[in-house]
Every structure is written in C-alpha cells, then in structure tokens.
C-alpha cells in the first residue's frame, strides 16, 4: 500500500504561488529525493506535508487517510517525523536530552507522576534514556551525550536532529538537507545511515543539494522548479533529463551540468 500520497498540493503566499499542483507517491522503505534550485519550493513542500503550513490546495494522504491541515504533533503520532534545514535543536539541553525529547510519544506520563517522581515516572525515564543512548550510538555521538547542544558542532547537531526524528519510530522520515554543511566524511556517514534506515522499512523523503548523495541512494527523484514538478523518475533518468539540466545551469551549461549531475 502507498504510504504517502501528495495530490494536487499547492500554496500561495500573498498572491504568489510558491508550490503548485504537485502529485507524487512514496512507498514504504523507499528513498524519494526532491531536488531543485534554491527557491524551487522544496522546504515549503516539506512544511506543508508536515503540517507546519496549511496548503491552499490539494491533499496529503498518509496510509490511506487524509491528513491535510493536521497539526504536526498529530502527524507525529501517525508516524511522520522530520528534520529541519536550519537546525531546530534544543540548545540548552544535552545531546542525550535532545534525543530523549524525541521519545516523547512513548514516554508520555501523567503530570502528577512526574511531579512526585513516582516509580512509574522513573522507570519511563530509564527506558527512554537507554533508547536515546542507543540512537546516539547509531549516529556516532555517544561521547557527546552529556554535552549541551549549544556547544556542539554543526555536523553533530545535524546528526542529533536525525536521531531525534528516529526516536519517534517513524514510518516516514522527512530529511531537509541532512548533509548541508557537513564535510566529506560526515556526508558519507549520513549517506550510510539513510540507506540503513530505509532498509528497515522506513520511507524517506529527502531534500538535498549534494547531487552525488542524491543520485547514489535515491530510488526515485522528483525535480522541482518554480514550485512545479519538472520531472520525476529514477536517478539515472533525471540526471539526463534536459529540462532538469537546464533548470540547474541554464541551457548554456548543459554539458557541464550533465557531468555534475551524472
């Protein structure tokens, strides 16, 4: 069954159409990448799917249910999780606590139990901590567990963001430029991590500028330009699509572009 369907999705900001008439599907365990030049509407699309913006037109369907306009926390309960292009870390909390907040849905407890620190609350705390620690291990950040997020490097925060999103046990994970600002080694690690997550059956919707990464791991690529779908298909098809090449570098740079995308 199709996990996520986007049907005719569009949004206007003060009369200007940012995204228009977008359709695509995501299957479980699939890695789908959204590419396009800056301002093509990729992040806006993410914000609509994850319930932060209300679309002006169209629908988002998750596991057969219409979830358009649903609040982000309700979407999280239905298995949608995301990261952010410009980090949204909890700066004053430790790396471990950042990921523990991600476990929120499995550790929710009555307020009085937390105020009185009843055994049930302590037990949940311990379980969450173990789970969060395991996730930090997965993103190679165990050493940083007890450091405040504000003191960590950009690359580390990017990975914490992913660990936090994974802590929600998502069915679909939206990654907004997970490798931006990371060095080659870190990019490699993130690349492996994404492939691993997908192998476990989690669908991944990816926005990324690193074309090498996109072409290597995607099952399926959607190219946007000016808020509309330019092309859709397998990575090898997209990288040869003349419309995509032109959108990226203009018709002059055709050859170089084909090379860069290839």
């Amino acid at each position, binding site marked *: 069954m199709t996990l996520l369907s986007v049907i005719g999705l569009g949004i206007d900001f003060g009369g200007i159409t940012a995204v228009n008439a977008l359709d695509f599907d995501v299957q479980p365990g699939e890695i789908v990448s959204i590419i396009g030049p800056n301002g093509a509407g990729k992040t806006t699309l993410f914000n609509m799917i994850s319930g*932060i913006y209300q679309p002006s037109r169209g629908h988002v369907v998750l596991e057969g249910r219409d979830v358009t306009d649903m609040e982000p926390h309700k979407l999280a309960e239905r298995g949608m999780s995301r990261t*952010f292009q410009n980090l949204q870390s909890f700066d004053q909390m430790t790396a471990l606590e950042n990921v523990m907040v991600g476990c929120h849905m499995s550790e929710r407890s009555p307020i009085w139990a937390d105020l009185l620190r009843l055994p049930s609350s302590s037990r949940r705390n311990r379980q969450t901590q173990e789970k969060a620690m395991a996730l930090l291990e997965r993103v190679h950040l165990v050493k940083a567990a007890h450091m405040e997020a504000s003191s960590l490097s950009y690359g580390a925060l990017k990975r914490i963001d992913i660990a936090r999103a994974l802590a929600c046990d998502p069915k679909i994970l939206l990654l907004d430029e997970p490798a931006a600002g990371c060095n080659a080694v870190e990019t490699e690690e993130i690349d492996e991590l994404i492939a691993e997550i997908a192998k476990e059956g989690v669908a991944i919707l990816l926005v990324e500028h690193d074309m090498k990464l996109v072409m290597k791991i995607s099952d399926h690529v959607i190219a946007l330009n000016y808020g509309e779908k330019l092309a859709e298909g397998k990575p090898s098809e997209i990288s040869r699509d003349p419309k995509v090449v032109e959108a990226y570098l203009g018709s002059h740079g055709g050859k170089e572009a084909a090379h860069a995308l290839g």
Partner: protein
Amino acid sequence: MSELLQFVFSGLTVGAVYALVALGFTIIYNASEVVNFSQGEFVMLGGMLTVFIFEAGLPLWGAAFLAIFITALVGVLLNKLAIEPARGASVVNLIIITIGASIFLRGLAQIIFDKQLHRYPSFSGDDPLHIAGATLLPQSIWVMFGAAFVFAGLYAFFTRTLTGKAILATANNRLAARLVGINTNFIMALSFGLSAAVGATAGVLVTPITLTSYDIGVMLALKGFAAAMLGGMGNPFGALVGGLFIGLIEATTAGYLTSEYKDAAAFIVILLTLFVMPQGLFGAKSMERV
C-alpha cells in the same frame, strides 16, 4: 444625547493622550523591536519637569519646551546606557530592562521632585465651551489638536525627509540599512529621543486637566501599550485609532456603567483583541519561518 457628547469629549481627550503614548511605543518598536515599558515615564517627566521649571520662574511655554527637550535627552540616554549595551538580549531580558528603567525613573522623580499631585494653569484659561449641551475645556482642545499636530508632523517627517525614511528603512531591515550607509546607532538614538519627546508632549498638554505626580506613568504606559496593540504593533495609524478607541471605551464605561471599573475596560478590550486577532486592527500578519 448631550450626555453622550460629553463622554465623547472626555474620551477623545484621554484617547489623544493614549494615542501619543502608543505612537511613542510604535516609534521605538519600529526602530528596534524593543517594547519600551518606560514610555509612561516620559509622559510623567514632561508634566513634572514643566511644573518645576515653571515654578522656578520660567514662562509656561518656555518651561514646556525645556521639559520636552530634557525628556528627549533622557530618552537618548536610556538608549545609550541601557538598550544599546543589551543588543541581542532575549525578549524577556529586554522587558525587564525597560521595566527596570521605568522603576528607576519613577524612583528618581520621587526623590528629585516629590510625591504630591501637581498642575499648572491651562494654556487658554478654564472657561468651558458649551456645545450642544455638553461642555468642553479649552485645554481639551489643546490636547486634541496638539496630538493631531504631532501625528501630522511625524507623518511628514517619516514620508518626506531623508532621515525619516532612514528610520523606516532601519525598521524594515537593519542589516540592509547599514549596508546602504545608514548609521543605525544614530537612528536608534533619534527614535528614542523622538519617542520621549512625543511622550513628554502628551504630558505637557494633559497635566492641567488630569494633574500629574511621579507615579502616573505605569497606567499610562499600560493603556498606551493596549492602544498600540489594538491598532496593530508598529503601525502609527493603528496607534491613533487604538488610542482614541480606548479613550472612548473608557469614558463611556465610566459614564454608563461604573467609574470604578473604567480602567478595566482597556484591559478587557486588549485581552479580547489578542484572543480574536492577535495582530491587531491594522497589523501585518506574520508567518513563522522554519
């Protein structure tokens, strides 16, 4: 009918004062995104300084102008000593800084002046005008026209002069303004001076009617703030409409319902506004960027 007209007169008089306080908020907010909780103290200083300079022997108009000038200096100093060093601090910090400034100025006024109520003579006597069965004090006319004059003058300043446009540009985008060569520190100082002068003008105009003392600033600031938010934070036209509206609501509440709760009217209005349309009547809707 004459009763209603009477309430309208008194409502417009206090409303004009609230509008000026709200305008003062707006000027500073636009230049710096700081909400200056000590705005009411500028009104107090305008009135109190006029009282004491006048009693020291200067003619009333001279005392008034000197008071406005000194208050403007206080505004500039406030910016230089308390706001500029706190650049980049959080909203909570800035709120506490400006509230601290307000308490400080009030305490200072209490020491330098005293704790008594004061007034000075009205500018054009106290013989009321009779209009359709209602009475209107000449000083009320001074307040209303004075406020109208200030609004018109500032409108011209912001739209016709280069400096005024520079302030608007700084409000729009501080970095871009600096890149095109606008001295944003100067703009900040100017905004605080201007805002303080506007507040002091309100104090000078209204003191013969409402009297003044060291502690009138708190309530004025809160109501001016309510007016600014009702109109839409950052919009001078909204400040005018919001101020007059709150003045009218207050006067009619006092007249028809209960004078004890006339102060409550402003706060009920502001709470309802915030619940129903947080951006105010004429404010721009903002969107969170992620």
